[in-house]
């Protein structure tokens, strides 16, 4: 359980994070989205005690991060996988953290196996690829068997196999009652992974709801054999539509309404589905453009 209340961070005259509040419930995966410079990383750093807030509180399982006696046993944090000493081996990095967390050495080897780094364990981190460092970071975050995970760009540098594995791992973690907040720019992957979204823009929260709520009503995508005729038919039926670049139309209506309108005009349809993919990306821009934020 993560609770953020009225968190604010000012640097001199600039307010990087303004009165941010949200909650992340156990058993759920929350995506934390926002453009670069919106205050995402600053908020995550305030959550993990790395940046002192100007005002407001952030608690994890009811306690401030710095008040947890051994935070790694409660919260697994991975903010930047590249921030590992290149001169240490992967195994030694995990053994070091295991010792600090008070977990047995075997746990480090288990985590190496869980992330698929057993073969590379004895090599220095400096020789790892970005994806391998990312996996090492995840292994380190999971080392203390935490109840909460705070991840910044966890899929960064991963190949599709790694991304799918990460998704499975996070779903399993949440299914067992864990709390996850992850920040990512890969909107497609976010959509496949999270239950809830918190969107931050210009230092303020601009959306905080479930993924379904956010995407509901983004409409229907339809493609017809005769694009112009279809456009006319749907407009005549009184439906709001928006032509997309590839000749398809996004209609602000249910699939049934579109189908009926097209059928009434004798239009042949080639494709009719929920327009989800474009939805999150467009919503993201709608929510985080400066005019929207100023409102």
């Amino acid at each position, binding site marked *: 359980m993560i609770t953020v209340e009225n968190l604010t961070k000012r640097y001199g005259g600039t307010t990087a994070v303004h009165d941010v509040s949200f909650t992340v419930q156990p058993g759920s995966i929350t995506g934390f989205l926002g453009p670069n410079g919106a205050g995402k990383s600053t908020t995550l*750093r305030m959550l*993990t005690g790395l940046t002192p807030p100007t005002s407001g509180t952030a608690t994890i399982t009811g306690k401030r991060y710095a008040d947890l006696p051994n935070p790694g046993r409660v919260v697994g944090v991975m*903010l930047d996988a590249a*921030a*590992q000493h290149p001169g240490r081996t992967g195994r030694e990095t995990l053994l070091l953290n295991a010792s*600090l967390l008070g977990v047995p050495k075997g746990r480090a080897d288990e985590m190496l*196996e869980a992330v698929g780094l057993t073969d590379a364990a004895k090599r220095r981190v400096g020789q790892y690829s970005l994806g391998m460092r990312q996996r090492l970071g995840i292994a*380190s975050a999971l080392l203390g068997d935490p109840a909460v995970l705070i991840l910044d760009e966890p899929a960064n540098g991963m190949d599709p196999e790694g991304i*799918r594995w990460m998704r499975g791992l996070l779903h399993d973690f949440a299914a067992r009652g864990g709390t996850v907040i992850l920040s990512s720019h890969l909107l497609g992957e976010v959509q496949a992974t999270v239950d809830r979204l918190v969107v931050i823009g210009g230092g303020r929260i601009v959306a905080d709801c479930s993924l379904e709520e956010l995407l509901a009503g983004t409409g229907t995508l339809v493609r017809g054999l005769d694009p112009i005729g279809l456009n006319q038919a749907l407009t005549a039926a009184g439906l709001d539509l928006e032509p997309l670049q590839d000749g398809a139309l996004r209609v602000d209506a249910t699939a049934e309404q579109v189908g009926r309108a097209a059928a009434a005009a004798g239009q042949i349809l080639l494709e009719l589905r929920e327009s989800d993919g474009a939805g999150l990306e467009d919503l993201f821009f709608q929510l985080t453009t400066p005019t929207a934020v100023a409102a």
Partner: protein
Amino acid sequence: MTTVTDIAPTAPAKHRAEVATALPPARGQSFLKLVTIELRKSVNTRSGRVLIAAILLIAAVAITWQLTHLPEGPAGFDGFLGAASTGVMLILPVIGVMAMTSEWTQRTALTTFTLSPRRVRVQLAKFVSAIVLSVVVMTAVVLLAFAGTALAGAVTDHTTSYGGLGGQLAGAYLTVALNVVMGAAFGAVIAQTAVAILVYFIAPTAWSLAGPALFKDNANWLDVFGAFGRIAERDLHGMLPETLTAIGVWIVVPTIVGLWASSRREVK
């Protein structure tokens, strides 16, 4: 067209396998644990090991040179110790500096201060670990010096002399510990490895060269090497206030400023 197979590295539930319930209960991080971890960090990287190996290698080379260029008279242990300590005095403080700065330069501060958010404790543990490391390395060098002296007695026709052994050893350990602590103090206040090392080598030396010319005897108040020397001899020559001031300015103040700065510094 290839068949699509789900080739996840391992069973997805592995990270919370049965052993999860067998993890020992979470306890706080004792200061001793923090010191042990810092000690481990200074030797588990390639750069750390290379530095220590360099110190021991220089010591071994110096002792060998001393063996082959013995002056007239008994082969004194102090000669061997002095020769072997050069490498120690030059390089160990660098390890002290790096103990404080490498977290910021290598960005491992992100992990360190996430796992141990109470930064002042961690920084103090780094100081203690730097002192412990210096004692261990110095002991290895002392043993090499003993070996050199004994070898001189056995192989050449010099007699050996261990006169004033206690004083020499105390002096050596004290000097190296003080230098390492000063290195760490500089590393605390200048969080960049290269700059901190440079300033460490230049600033106190520059003062001991320029100070007396500019301030005559008053330069003693800030002459840290003089202070170290007096402490190593365990004879302050009645200059207690000067000694304390020098230590205060060159070690205590940078340490306090460094600890305060690193507690407030943003970790990126």
